[in-house]
């Protein structure tokens, strides 16, 4: 699960210097550029598919994900159970479908929390400067010094095992990424001439922050948020694997992997499907995030 590190080190460090700008063409051209990238479209399609599974789980899943069937314990895939069954006869397909809910829900909720905390703090640090900036950034640096997943595990253990607590733990762990990114973006945009022009028009500071700086940093935040969702999904799976996230009998890809590891020889399908799901979801969000970055900032095209 070392992939979670991507969220804190490689990805977080890269974007701040390059402030993605609104580029010629506005929304229409943005979609044209996104459509032209096969990877981004594939990512978007997979994300959409998982979203459909998560939202429509009640209708799509062929069985109740917690219903046991002692007549079909660790049954290999058949027409009745296309993905097989687990150690107490629950349908793996149904659990994968419902697991999408836990994974995507945790990814989105925790990143939403991280943005909700990190964006205002980062704007405050970047715009106010001075002592406020110093205090916020020292705290952020301290949090960034702790590996993302380790911090999430520690917080989740402290808060107690539940999916909600896992989301909070992941969200808090990812907050520092957004504080730092937002601050760097705000400082870059604040140096732009149109911000000085806005001051020359008589804008008070709060109006400059909300009307002139914020809209111009949204693209960078959006890209980082998409990439961080991928890291958050891995973190949720890790926490659930360790028993700190989704509690049995409710399904989560991470906890499914945990039980599956005991039956790798006898029932490999118990591990393959949740593993594949995690892999696909993380890949999809990474592809989408990269595509968004390219579409929002054509100058950075490889």
């Amino acid at each position, binding site marked *: 699960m070392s992939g979670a590190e991507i969220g804190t080190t490689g990805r977080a460090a890269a974007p701040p210097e390059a402030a993605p*700008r*609104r*580029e*010629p063409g*506005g929304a229409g051209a943005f979609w044209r550029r996104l459509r032209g990238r096969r990877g981004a479209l594939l990512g978007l399609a997979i994300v959409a598919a998982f979203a459909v599974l998560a939202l429509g789980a009640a209708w799509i899943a062929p069985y109740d994900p917690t219903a046991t069937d002692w007549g079909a314990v660790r049954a290999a895939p058949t027409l009745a159970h296309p993905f097989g069954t687990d150690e107490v006869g629950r349908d793996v397909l149904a659990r994968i479908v419902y697991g999408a809910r836990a994974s995507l829900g945790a990814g989105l909720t925790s990143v939403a929390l991280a943005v909700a905390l990190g964006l205002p703090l980062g704007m405050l640090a970047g715009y106010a400067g001075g002592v406020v900036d110093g205090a916020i950034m020292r705290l952020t640096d301290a949090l960034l010094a702790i590996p993302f997943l380790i911090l999430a595990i520690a917080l989740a253990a402290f808060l107690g095992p539940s999916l909600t607590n896992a989301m909070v733990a992941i969200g808090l762990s990812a907050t520092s990424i957004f504080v730092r990114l937002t601050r760097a973006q705000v400082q870059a945009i604040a140096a*732009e*001439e*149109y911000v*000085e*022009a*806005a*001051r*020359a*028009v*008589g*804008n*008070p500071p709060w*109006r400059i922050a909300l*009307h*002139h700086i914020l*809209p*111009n940093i949204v693209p960078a935040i959006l890209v980082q948020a998409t990439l961080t969702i991928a890291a958050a999904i891995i973190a949720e799976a890790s926490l659930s694997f360790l028993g700190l996230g989704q509690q049995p009998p409710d399904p989560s890809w991470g906890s499914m992997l945990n039980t599956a590891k005991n039956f790798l020889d006898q029932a490999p399908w118990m591990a393959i499907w949740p593993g594949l799901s995690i892999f696909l979801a993380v890949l999809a969000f990474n592809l989408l995030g990269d595509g968004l970055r390219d579409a929002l900032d054509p100058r950075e095209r490889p």
Partner: protein
Amino acid sequence: MTAPPASPAAPPLLEVRDLAVAFDGDGGTLRAVDGVSYGLGEGETLGIVGESGSGKSVHVLAMLGLIPRPPGRVSGGRVLFCGRDLLALPERALQRVRGAEIGMVFQDPMSSLNPAMTVAAQIAEPLRIHLGLDARSARARARDLLDLVRIPEAGRRLDLYPHEFSGGQRQRVMIAIGLACRPKLLIADEATTALDVTVQAEIVALVRELKREIGMAIIWITHDLGVVAGLADTVQVMYAGRILERGPVDAVFSDPRNAYTLGLIRSLPDLSRGRAGRRRLRQIEGSPPDMRHPPPGDPFAPRNPYATARCRTEAPPLRQAPGAAPGHLVAAWYDLPALIAREDRA
């Protein structure tokens, strides 16, 4: 260009007294503006010329509290605008002056317009902030302002973003923003520098027309003498944070009294003469002084072939040039016309 110079009876619209601006840095204090004084009457157009680093832009930004502090600071002087000292106003009160009573137009219309805001929203901004207009009437005014700056099909173009306009049109939008609240003073900082020559001419013509319609005073900052000649009543030459010469445009251009002004004029091509009548362009030797360690006397003395011993030790005051048109002021210890005449004889 016949606006009368400010009469001594009526207090001028803007009076700058001994303005000094400094930037504190690692290498010492940089004196960007060093004792600048002048007045600007209602409806007068003042062209300020000088090269980069002459303090021409910094001093107007400092007036409006727009220089970054720190490292910059106003180290002295007063700026009276309609009788109030802008330098003594608290930030809140200055915000009510900026964009309302004093409009500004910046150099590069691409980078000075917010790429993420429609043109209508940007023109509406000063109207909403200063006049408290609601969204709908601000939009209607924005439309009128686009008409005012001669942008065709204004109604259809309100919701476009800056990149969907040409360079000249973007500068027209900037002018519309600057004029939105009918300011008494419009400050244009290198407003035509980033534009093509033909577009420059259009903008200058537009500003001249708008001035006739609205009657605001203008401070036009540029390094382009041609633009000043076409627009200004009074010209002021700045160098190394000081005013070296100032006077009615025709008087200064036809009878320059400072060697720096002469150097600027001589470095311009004269396209009106035929090929035979053309002369070699002359550049001003050397480069501007390091403002952390300015020369003790006249700042231009090290580059000035006419400099006297006194120029190198003592800074000349700005005063009426002897034998020149009234209001034609110069800071020089030497008598330039006499020196040129002697040169021509030799």
